[in-house]
């Protein structure tokens, strides 16, 4: 472990570093502390819209309802499914671009093209494409009543597809950056030493790409858990993913549901936070394994 002297020597530049990061950190902290803080205050009744503030945990006891449990389950399922697909697709795309095009400008651009498309636009496009009277259904000349229920159907196919499509581009971009020239050299060296293609993937490429994979998968899963518009546009009436549930309670004509809306929002933040935590632990592991 470090001695006092080395620690002191290291602390100065590190302190200066955090000082330099302050301008970037300040707005993040402001949003987190003020926004999240007022959400928490409203959820425990300390910031009421009418009447006197009084501490209460009733909004949190109301979370023990089947609607919230089902919402949590569907939120996690959507996040898990779309992230898994995005990781596979994104990694494949990144490897293809990395292998095929050493000067990967154009192909990388192509792989990243979906990143700037807003989820809202993606969701509407997915709906137009996959709904039972959508473009695909019409091209196939299918009967809308017998066409598989991809949009607003029991398996949330449209929602998962949209997230997977968008997030796979993000995963591809991050992984592509991490697979530097070093991967190619190490791979070639391994090939010279007689490693098969699978062994090279397993022992060289994947370990090099895994930190980037873990980071991008964590970010995308946490994002999906907190995202509203895709589930609202392409999902079904019940169960409601947590953000959809929170927003419905938030806009309820009855102002008394506001604390409960805030409690669901805080719960959503908690779930996203837990995902981030799991991701951090996994990142430590992959980094340590290297």
């Amino acid at each position, binding site marked *: 472990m470090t001695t006092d002297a080395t620690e002191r020597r290291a602390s100065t530049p590190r302190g200066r570093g955090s000082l330099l990061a302050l301008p970037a950190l300040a707005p993040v902290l402001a949003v987190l502390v003020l926004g999240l803080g007022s959400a928490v205050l409203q959820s425990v009744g300390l910031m009421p819209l*009418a009447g006197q503030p009084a501490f209460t945990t009733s909004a949190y006891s109301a979370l023990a309802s089947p609607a919230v449990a089902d919402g949590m389950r569907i939120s996690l399922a959507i996040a898990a499914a779309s992230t898994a697909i995005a990781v596979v697709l994104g990694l494949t795309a990144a490897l293809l671009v990395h292998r095929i095009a050493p000067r990967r400008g154009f192909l990388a651009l192509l792989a990243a093209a979906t990143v700037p498309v807003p989820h809202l636009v993606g969701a509407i496009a997915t709906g137009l494409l996959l709904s039972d009277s959508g473009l695909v259904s019409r091209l196939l000349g299918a009967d809308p009543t017998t066409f598989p229920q991809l949009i*607003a159907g029991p398996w949330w196919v449209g929602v998962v597809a949209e997230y997977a499509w968008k997030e796979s581009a993000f995963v591809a971009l991050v992984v592509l950056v991490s697979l530097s020239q070093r991967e190619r050299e190490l791979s070639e060296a391994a090939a010279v030493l007689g490693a098969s293609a699978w062994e090279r993937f397993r022992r060289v490429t994947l370990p090099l790409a895994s930190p980037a994979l873990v980071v991008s998968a964590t970010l995308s899963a946490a994002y999906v858990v907190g995202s509203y518009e895709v589930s609202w546009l392409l999902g*079904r009436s019940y169960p409601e993913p947590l953000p959809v549930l929170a927003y419905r309670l938030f*806009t309820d004509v009855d102002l008394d549901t506001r604390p409960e809306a805030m409690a669901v929002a805080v719960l959503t933040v908690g779930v996203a936070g837990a995902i981030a935590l799991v991701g951090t632990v996994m990142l430590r592991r992959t980094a340590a394994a290297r």
Partner: protein
Amino acid sequence: MPSTHVRPRRVGLLCVLAGASLSLTACAGATVAPPAVVDPATSWSLVTSAAQGQTVNLWMYGGDDLGNSYVDKILAPAAAAQGVTIHRVPITDTADALNRVVSETTAGRTMDGSVDLVWVNGENFRTGAQASLWKCGWATSLPNARYLDTRDPLLLNDFGTPVNGCEAPWHKAQFVIAYDSAKVTSPPTSIPELLTWAQDHPARFTYPQPPDFTGSAFVRQALYGISGGVASVPSTYDAATAQPLEDALWSKLSGVAPSLWRGGQTYPRDLTALDKLYSDGQVWFTMTYGPATIDARVKDGTFPATTKVLSLRDGSLGNASFLAIPANAAHSAAAQVVANLALSPEQQAAKADPSTWGQYTVLDVTKVPESLRAPLEARSAISVVPPFSTLSTSSNPELSATWVTPLEQGWRKSVLGG
């Protein structure tokens, strides 16, 4: 106004001290209201002179193209001629405007709020009144309020909440159910018949999921229809008397659910989604609280030309919608000028023209000078929607807004989740 006897400066101090929403009405009143002694004409001229050069942020549902273009092309130029600029803020749900006002007032923005005027419906009006978010007492003193029937029940109570001059009427509306007459050969004439029809024709009927405004209205219409008419439903919610009525309604609606679109497993998320299903021919019925949109959609070919309005034996829900000024509005004088202008016979007539917007007038036609009467009841030569006088013959009064929440929650629990 509750606080006219308090001197304005004192009120200002109270506002700072209280901070919260309780005394907002009094605060905003004090900042713009003229002293109580002046006569109405002078006080109105004070309002108009204060309004000069101000920009009104008018928050309104933005999903209605005709409404947007009426405000931009007809109302706004007329307001500009009176020295007021209208900035239309399109929103997807009136609750968004309310939320903005709530957030601003909780954050202490009690004087210069960003919402000046809201096109509001009864549910949100009640919510706002609950939290004292509205500026009150101004609507009755608008010069053009003289054309209104002061005893019209639709204008005295908004979904059971007394209006008390806290909002100015804008238009009247009638809930209608439309169908494709090419496919529905023997149209039902009542809600129970409609539900029976739905059971006989699987997957051809559905309604938007409450709390969508139209879906909520359908549930209230169904409550009247299944309970045996307007007389059987108390207008104010009371858990004890409501229970048997609700039980009957939920058992009927969940009974019919398996025969709805997608087997009642899911519902169109809003009216837009239902209209799409209807225009794609997946369902054969749609519904709306703004009948003029049906004419417009038939005209532009979105809806089949064979669309007709269901004539319900027991009539249908009718209401009036209003313009309200939040208590923290930054430009409340200009907002009053716009609300007054919107009530003028000329504007009401322009708005009633189906090719403009087709919103029914709130004015009492007998009080309007004869030369201006005819266009107020205008409708296009070829219209699928019957005239307002026919539609509203046996108009059902809206239930009190106290019903809205129990019905929405009950539907979610007993029909959707059950």
